[in-house]
């Protein structure tokens, strides 16, 4: 008897399973990302909205840790034959992803193969340039983009009777005045020391960081940032470090608290710092474009982006790709881009979304949110300001930081430090070139 019951139950279970199967035919799309807090909410909302808008595909977002963790998790999953469909990769991982032909599906190919409507010209070129081949083929889908801006504590500047500086010499002067006015541990400072003082500095002054259009035109690129501009800039910082008019704040963004606490009234870091400033700063603030050296011809040029893009992984079925393509189209929608822009503080990636936000008067109250866009679109990007594509970028930045720290500590001159950074970096680039898939 018991056995017959079991048989009946099993039969029912099978039938139920079969009748339920059309519902299970929803194609699941795994989306791995590195967003926390309010930005995580944006991701979840985007996925939910997409899932509610149609019934064939289901996007499942999963938080995988910080940018490096997410990328490593994706690489490990790929090696185990288990990669997600969409992976959020920070901009410095671009070369690694791009070199992995076969592991990734270029976005322009995906869109063409699935027949989705896709116009690369609809996106802001300053952003897509970073993620495109030299022929303008978009490899990954820009998602959250930011740029370097100069955050300014308006109250403290007013107290010290200092105008908002526009050029580097003005910043140095402002720092000295601020120090005299009581900011004796830090007149000005910044995060991401190599991003701000090498990568952005070079692009902003239309000076090469490395050959072959900063690596965009090939992995056989050679570093060139030990030129007069970069050496002079580092020399200036070294000199000011001695009196703490400039005070080094670490390799990553751990020093950002020095701005929100009021210690450093001038602070160069990502425009994505906006959320924290808004939440924590008890003073009037704004963000203005990066300073420049007025004696450099053509400066300021345009800035390059930070942030992350979405890479589509290789080896998935046609149906899954169809869903991924539909999701990317969904993300490109103007209203949706405006929503992402407003909710996260990251840049809108399409021209239409930017125009719409402008027309809505979004930047009237918050002009600092337009600053990174104005920087990115300041001039038509050149070979030196389209973007960067260097292999092993995370590690490269650590090596460069090591050398800059030695200069700031007075152990090496600025020139010696940058020469060493170039030499050590080149060794790593050759190593990367050897392993990159041809």
């Amino acid at each position: 008897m018991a056995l017959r019951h079991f048989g009946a139950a099993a039969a029912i279970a099978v039938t139920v399973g079969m009748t339920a199967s059309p519902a299970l035919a929803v194609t699941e799309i795994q989306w791995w990302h590195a967003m926390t807090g309010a930005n995580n909410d944006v991701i979840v909302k985007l996925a939910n909205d997409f899932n509610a808008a149609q019934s064939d595909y289901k996007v499942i977002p999963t938080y995988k840790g910080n940018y490096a963790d997410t990328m490593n998790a994706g690489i490990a999953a790929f090696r185990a034959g288990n990669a997600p469909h969409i992976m959020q990769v920070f901009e410095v991982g671009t070369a690694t992803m791009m070199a992995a032909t076969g592991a990734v599906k270029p976005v322009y190919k995906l869109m063409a193969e699935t027949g989705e409507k896709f116009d690369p010209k609809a996106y802001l070129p300053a952003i897509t340039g970073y993620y495109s081949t030299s022929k303008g083929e978009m490899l990954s889908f820009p998602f959250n983009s930011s740029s370097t801006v100069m955050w300014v504590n308006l109250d403290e500047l007013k107290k010290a009777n200092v105008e908002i500086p526009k050029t580097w010499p003005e910043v140095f002067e402002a720092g000295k005045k601020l120090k005299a006015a009581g900011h004796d541990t830090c007149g000005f400072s910044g995060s991401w020391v190599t991003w701000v003082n090498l990568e952005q500095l070079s692009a902003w002054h239309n000076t090469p960081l490395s050959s072959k259009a900063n690596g965009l035109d090939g992995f056989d690129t050679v570093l060139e940032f030990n030129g007069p501009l970069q050496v002079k800039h580092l020399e200036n910082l070294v000199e000011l470090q001695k009196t703490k008019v400039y005070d080094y704040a670490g390799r990553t963004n751990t020093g950002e608290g020095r701005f929100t606490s009021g210690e450093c009234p001038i602070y160069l870091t990502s425009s994505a710092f906006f959320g924290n400033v808004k939440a924590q700063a008890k003073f009037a603030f704004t963000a203005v474009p990066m300073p420049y050296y007025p004696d450099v011809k053509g400066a300021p040029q345009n800035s390059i982006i930070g942030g992350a893009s979405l890479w589509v992984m290789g080896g998935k079925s046609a149906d899954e790709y169809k869903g991924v393509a539909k999701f990317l189209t969904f993300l490109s929608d103007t209203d949706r881009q405006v929503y992402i822009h407003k909710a996260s503080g990251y840049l809108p990636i399409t021209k239409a979304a930017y125009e719409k936000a402008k027309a809505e008067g979004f930047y009237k109250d918050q002009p600092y949110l337009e600053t990174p866009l104005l920087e990115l679109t300041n001039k038509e990007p050149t070979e030196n300001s389209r973007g960067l594509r260097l292999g092993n970028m995370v590690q490269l930045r650590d090596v460069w930081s090591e050398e800059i720290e030695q200069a700031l500590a007075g152990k090496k001159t600025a020139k010696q430090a940058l020469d060493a950074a170039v030499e050590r970096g080149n060794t790593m680039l050759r190593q990367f070139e050897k392993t990159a898939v041809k």
Partner: protein
Amino acid sequence: MQKQAIFQSKLLPYALVAPQLAIVLIFFYWPALQAVIQSFLLQDAFGLSSSFVWFDNYIELFKDPAYFAAIVRTFFFSFAIAISSLSFALLLAVMADKPLRGSMLYRTLLIWPYAVAPPVVGVLWIFMLHPSLGVLSRYLRGLGIDWNPLLDGNQAAALVILAAAWKQISYNFLFFLAGLQSIPKSVIEAAAIDGARPMRRFWTVIFPLLSPTIFFLLVINIVYAFFDTFGIIDTMTRGGPGTSTVTLVYKVYSDGLLGGNLGSSAAQSVILMIMVIVLTGIQFRFVERKVTY
């Protein structure tokens, strides 16, 4: 005499030991073998292309002066961490061993840091000693010390050693306390009756009787300093300023996981493995002779 009196079947002992063997093989020898294989390969991060390069990864390492600097630094860090945490823990254990009111409370308080994960230890100390956010930094600056571990390599090294040693004190304390409590009271009392003062009692009676514990802890501490301090370094200094806190195991992490240079990273792990084997061999061969069980 019959030697196999316990097991009737010849297979049973093998069957009983098999699970343990399987665990050792799968979780220790298999990864170690993988590391050795990987160290001969040049491979991209995704594992799409790989070529066999013989000893190239090792040769590259030995050509790199930074690698030798990291070796020297690692030994210095390990001994500094081991010596400071061992001596401090011994001091605390000797004091906590005395019949005190509320000694259980002291002991418990002294043990808890062991339960803290290394990265948390790093964050904890950074909060106290960060040049601009740190609470203690303010006092240091008040004393006229230019405290800035973000740029001063020696200060950063001291910070890492301090945090790493602090975390290990609890573990050492636990073992020292147990060791001290297992020393027969009669021996110490006899020495006291013979007129030996506390210091003399400690160095001639207690310390030698404690030597097996000290030796065991020395091995454990050096292995800890070699391998487990990585989380502390990553959260506190990320190897900087300059390369002043890059130890061998941190280099394995940054080259392999951050840099995607798996071949070099694997070669480094193999060298590290050999180094620890040799070190442990030396300890057991030479230091153990001085140990009285």
